[in-house]
C-alpha cells in the first residue's frame, strides 16, 4: 500500500469526489431514492464495501474522526483494513468509540449508542434494490419506484407469512422512507430498523458494484413494512449480554467449547466495553455479583 501516498487526499481525485458529493446531495434531497453514480475502482474487492468507502472518501475531511465496524465489531479484518486505509490516505483520527466519531462506516449494524446530530453513518450496501428479487428488470423496478407501485413488497411478506406463519425476514428488512420510497437497508438486521427512524444522524448508503447512493436525512420517518395483523417486530433476546449485562441490545452467539457451551454477547463491541468500564457486568464476568443482586 506504500504507493498510495502519492494519491490525492482520501484516495479519490477531487473531480470524482465532487461527482459523488453531487449524488449524495441529490440522495439527501430525495430520501430513500437510489441515485446512480459512476462507481470507481477502489483498491479492494467489491464485497469489501467499495460503495461505502467511496462515500466516506468523498465526505471525509482532515478534522473528522472515523469509526469503522463490521457486524458490530471494530476489530474484524474488513473494519481494520478500511480504517487503516483512511488513516493512510487521509491521515484522519480514528476511534472505536461511537460517541467520539464524526463518521461511522458500517457493514451491518447501527451502533447501540444513540447517534447525535452532526454524526454521519455510512452503510456499505451489497444489494440496494428492494424490488430486485421480485422483479429482475431494472427498467420495471425504476418505473415501480417512480409510480410508487409497491404492492409487490407486500406480496413477498404475504408469502413469508403463508409459508412460515410469520414474517421471517430478519435482515435487509424493507422500509418506507419519508412516506414515499421503499428502501432496502441491507444487510442490517431488522433489530436496527427502529434506530433509523427519526435518527438525528445523517445516514448515507453506498453500493459500489450496483453504482447506487441513497440517503436518509436526519429526522426522517423510516417505517418498516408490515401487515396490520402481523406487525413489524424486532428480535428479542431471552437473556442479557453475558459480559456486560445489557438488555435490549443485539446479541451474537459465541461458542465457548465443543461440549455445547455458548454465551450471548453484545454484537456492538464498543458498547459492551464501555458498559464494562462503567462497572456493568454480565453473568460470565461477575457470577457472584449477579447472585448477590
Amino acid at each position: 500500500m506504500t504507493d498510495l501516498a502519492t494519491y490525492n487526499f482520501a484516495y479519490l481525485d477531487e473531480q470524482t469526489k465532487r461527482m459523488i458529493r453531487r449524488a449524495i446531495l441529490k440522495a439527501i434531497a430525495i430520501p430513500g431514492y437510489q441515485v446512480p453514480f459512476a462507481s470507481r475502482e477502489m483498491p479492494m474487492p467489491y464485497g469489501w464495501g467499495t460503495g461505502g468507502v467511496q462515500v466516506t472518501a468523498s465526505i471525509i475531511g482532515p478534522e473528522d474522526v472515523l469509526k469503522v465496524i463490521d457486524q458490530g465489531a471494530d476489530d474484524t479484518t474488513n473494519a481494520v483494513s478500511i480504517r487503516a486505509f483512511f488513516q493512510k490516505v487521509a491521515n484522519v483520527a480514528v476511534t472505536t468509540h461511537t460517541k467520539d466519531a464524526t463518521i461511522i462506516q458500517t457493514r451491518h449494524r447501527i451502533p447501540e449508542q444513540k447517534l447525535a446530530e452532526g454524526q454521519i453513518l455510512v452503510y456499505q450496501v451489497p444489494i440496494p434494490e428492494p424490488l430486485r428479487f421480485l422483479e429482475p428488470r431494472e427498467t420495471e423496478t425504476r418505473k415501480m419506484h417512480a409510480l410508487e407501485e409497491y404492492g409487490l413488497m407486500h406480496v413477498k411478506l404475504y408469502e413469508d407469512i403463508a409459508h412460515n406463519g410469520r414474517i421471517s425476514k430478519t435482515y435487509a428488512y424493507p422500509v418506507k422512507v419519508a412516506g414515499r420510497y421503499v428502501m432496502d437497508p441491507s444487510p442490517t438486521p431488522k433489530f436496527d430498523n427502529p434506530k433509523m427512524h427519526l435518527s438525528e444522524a445523517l445516514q448515507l448508503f453506498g453500493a459500489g458494484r450496483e453504482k447506487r447512493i441513497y440517503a436518509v436525512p436526519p429526522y426522517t420517518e423510516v417505517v418498516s413494512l408490515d401487515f396490520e395483523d402481523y406487525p413489524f417486530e424486532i428480535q428479542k433476546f431471552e437473556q442479557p449480554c453475558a459480559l456486560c449485562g445489557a438488555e435490549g441490545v443485539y446479541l451474537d452467539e459465541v461458542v465457548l467449547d465443543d461440549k455445547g457451551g455458548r454465551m450471548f454477547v453484545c454484537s456492538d463491541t464498543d458498547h459492551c466495553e464501555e458498559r464494562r468500564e462503567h462497572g456493568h457486568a454480565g453473568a460470565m464476568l461477575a457470577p457472584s455479583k449477579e447472585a448477590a443482586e
Partner: protein
Amino acid sequence: MTDTPLLKVSGVSKFYGSRIGCKGVSFDLWPGEVLAIVGESGSGKTTLLNCLSTRLIPTTGSVEYRMRDGNFRDLYHMGEAERRFLMRTDWGFVHQNPVDGLRMTVSAGANVGERLMAIGDRHYGKIRETASDWLARVEISTDRIDDQPRAFSGGMRQRLQIARNLVTHPRLVFMDEPTGGLDVSVQARLLDLVRGLVNDLGLSAIVVTHDLAVARLLSHRMMVMKDGHVIEHGLTDRVLDDPREPYTQLLVSSILQV
C-alpha cells in the same frame, strides 16, 4: 345497461411500419356487454385488443373510458401512473398463456392477493380470506392456496389468472384467446365459468377468439376482422345465423363443416 357507453372507440388504427395491424376501428362498448373480436390468424385481433387496453399505442384514433366518477377520459392523454392504476383496479387482462399473466413463483393466494395489496390492503387475514373465496369461485380447491401455479394444470392456471384479475371487481376485462391452449373438455368448463362470472358480476368484456363457438357462448355482440379491418359487426346471434359479408359466411360455414 345504462344509456352511456363504458368505452368509446373511434378511428383506431395501428401500423407496424407500412404493414396494417388494424385500421379505422370504431365502436362503443356498453356496461355489462361482452364483445367478441373474431377473425383468422393475422387479421389484427390482438393488435386491436392491445390498442384498446393501452398495452400498445395506436398510430391514430382515440379510446375513451368512462371512469367510476362518470367522466370520460381519453386513455392516451392520461398520465402513466393513473393508467397503470386503472389497469390493475378497474380493468382485467386475461392472457392466452397464463404464464404471461401470473407470477409463477409465488403462491396462488399471493397471486390473487397481489392487486389487493397494490391498492393498499394491509390485513393479511382479510387478504387471505378474499383470496380463498376467489379460488373457490373459480373452482380451485382452497387447500391449494399456498401452492405455486407451477404445480397447477393449464385449466387451473387459467382459472387462477381469472381470479387474480377479478379480485378488485373490475368493470372491464380484456381476454385474448382465453381458452386457446386448453383441451376441449377443459375449454368447455372454463367457458361456463367465465360466462357465469360475467353474468354474476355484470362485467363488460372484450374477448378475442378465432373460435366462433366461444363467441357464440360468451358474447352479446361480435366484430369480424379481416386484414386489419372490421368487416362485419352486429349482435352475435345475427352475425352467426345470418352473416351478411361473404367472408363471414365463409368463416361460419367452414366452422360448421368441422
